[in-house]
């Protein structure tokens, strides 16, 4: 088979499979959230469509497609229509660098289970995620309405604040691995301990940021129902409204995947070495993929668990936590890592 054709075929295959995986997971996450929330509040939740409500996301999507798209008169048309797209596109793009499992062997060629194995790895995610903020702030601005504007501006202020903490929290990892490539990060954890154990402070900060960056409770002041109606998507309806949700839930999946990759060993299975996994060939890859996915799902359950455990922070508390605690803690983590990793006597 022609090498170029094979390369493009596998790349396209990976793109289609992984993006759909993320989108389907996002849809199931919405269902899961409703069901688990219901259990936590002694309700039943949606359980009528399909077995245990499994087809509910499809019903929701169809309903969104057929709903009337109300565009209020005061909106700034072009950006109002583009804003949901600006939220979804970066969320999908960040999937590119996430390694889903050990390399598969197809027709004797190794195919790594990552769409693009970039040198700058995690920086790509940060760069693209920093563009995702524009979807929210432009939605707020283009709606030309007060609640969306307040929600959009608050949301972007919160997201950029926590981007800093996010950036600081992962530097400790790069000091140990010496590489930004996510495959190298996973390899380092297969050889040693998971970074959740060797970088506990960085792990804690990253988890907090995962909540703040995706506007999840306890950091969901941008769309706090009790004060801002629905925040930046107050004026949206139909599929445009659903696209904000798609973007948000895909971003939640990406953060779960990043936490699994950076701090929980990626596809690493405890007490199984990389060689043992490789010895099982493609079955080993599948096992690694399952391991990675289990970690993601556990973290996504954690999202919901936290939602019904910790009440919402006030906006000033959110900002204070990010700037007054997050930044010095991130810096302290870097300094501590430097002194632990540098062998004594290297002056």
């Amino acid at each position, binding site marked *: 088979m022609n090498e170029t054709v094979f*390369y493009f075929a596998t*790349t396209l295959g990976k*793109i*289609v499979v992984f*993006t759909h995986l993320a989108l389907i997971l996002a849809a199931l996450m919405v269902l899961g959230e409703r069901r688990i929330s219901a259990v936590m509040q002694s309700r039943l939740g949606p359980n009528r469509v399909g077995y245990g409500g499994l087809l509910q996301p499809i019903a929701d999507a169809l309903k*969104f*497609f*057929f*709903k*009337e*798209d109300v565009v*209020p008169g005061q909106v700034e048309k072009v950006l109002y229509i583009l804003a*949901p*797209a600006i939220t*979804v*596109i970066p969320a*999908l793009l960040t999937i590119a660098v996430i390694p889903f499992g050990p390399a598969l062997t197809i027709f004797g060629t190794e195919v790594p289970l990552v*769409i*693009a*194995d970039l040198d700058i790895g995690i*920086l790509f995610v940060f760069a693209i995620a920093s563009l995702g903020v524009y979807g929210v702030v432009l939605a707020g*601005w283009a709606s*030309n*309405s*007060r609640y969306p*504007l307040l929600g959009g*501006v608050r949301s972007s202020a919160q997201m950029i604040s926590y*981007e*800093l903490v996010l950036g600081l929290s992962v*530097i400790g990892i*790069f*000091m140990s691995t010496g*590489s*930004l490539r996510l495959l190298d990060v996973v390899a380092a954890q297969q050889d040693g301990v998971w970074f959740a154990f060797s970088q506990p402070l960085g792990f*804690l900060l990253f988890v907090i940021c995962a909540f703040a960056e995706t506007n999840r409770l*306890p950091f969901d002041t941008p769309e706090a129902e009790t004060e801002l*109606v629905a925040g930046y998507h107050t*004026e949206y309806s139909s*599929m445009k409204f659903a*696209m904000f949700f798609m973007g948000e839930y895909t971003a939640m999946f990406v953060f779960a995947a990043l936490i699994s990759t950076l701090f929980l060993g990626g596809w690493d299975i405890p007490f199984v070495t990389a060689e043992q996994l490789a010895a099982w060939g493609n079955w080993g890859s599948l096992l690694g993929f399952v391991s990675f996915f289990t970690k993601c799902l556990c973290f996504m359950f954690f999202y919901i668990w936290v939602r019904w455990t*910790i*009440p*919402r922070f006030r*906006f*000033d*508390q959110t*900002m*204070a*936590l990010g*700037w*007054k*605690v997050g930044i*010095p*803690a991130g810096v302290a983590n*870097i*300094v501590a890592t*430097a002194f632990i990793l*540098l062998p004594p006597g*290297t*002056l």
Partner: protein
Amino acid sequence: MPESALNDYIPILLLTGFAVSFAAFNLVVSWLLGKKGTSNPDKETAFECGMVPLTPERRRFSVKFSTVAMLFIIFDIEIVFLIPWALKFRELGMFGVIEILVFIAVLMVGWWYCVAKGAFDWSPAGRSRSGNQAVRFTSGTGTQPSGGGALSERAVADRVES
């Protein structure tokens, strides 16, 4: 197939194409399938909890938001400098650590100035000064759930009234 590193970016281009067409698909299909409703003046107005808006919708907001954006740029640049150092941290050794400590120390002076001047205090003046919000967060207990204990008296009063 990738012989040059540039080829790593071809999948990104393909993925961008996929993501853009996915977003476009959603917008177009919902436009095609969606119910075409009627239009009336009330439907055209901005959401105001059922009230008639009295003031222009787009209101000015606190200057603090742009302050945060400015401080964000500065600390973002700090992180951008830290990343190359982190990657070559072992090779650079103690010298690099001292360098970066000086760099961080200078910036943390700026951070401390921000804290001292209240640049990170978003709560209304009365609350952050007399109340103990700021003190609580800097005391370093980490994630303070905003339970009853963390609320100042005025906040509790607000809650009781509402």
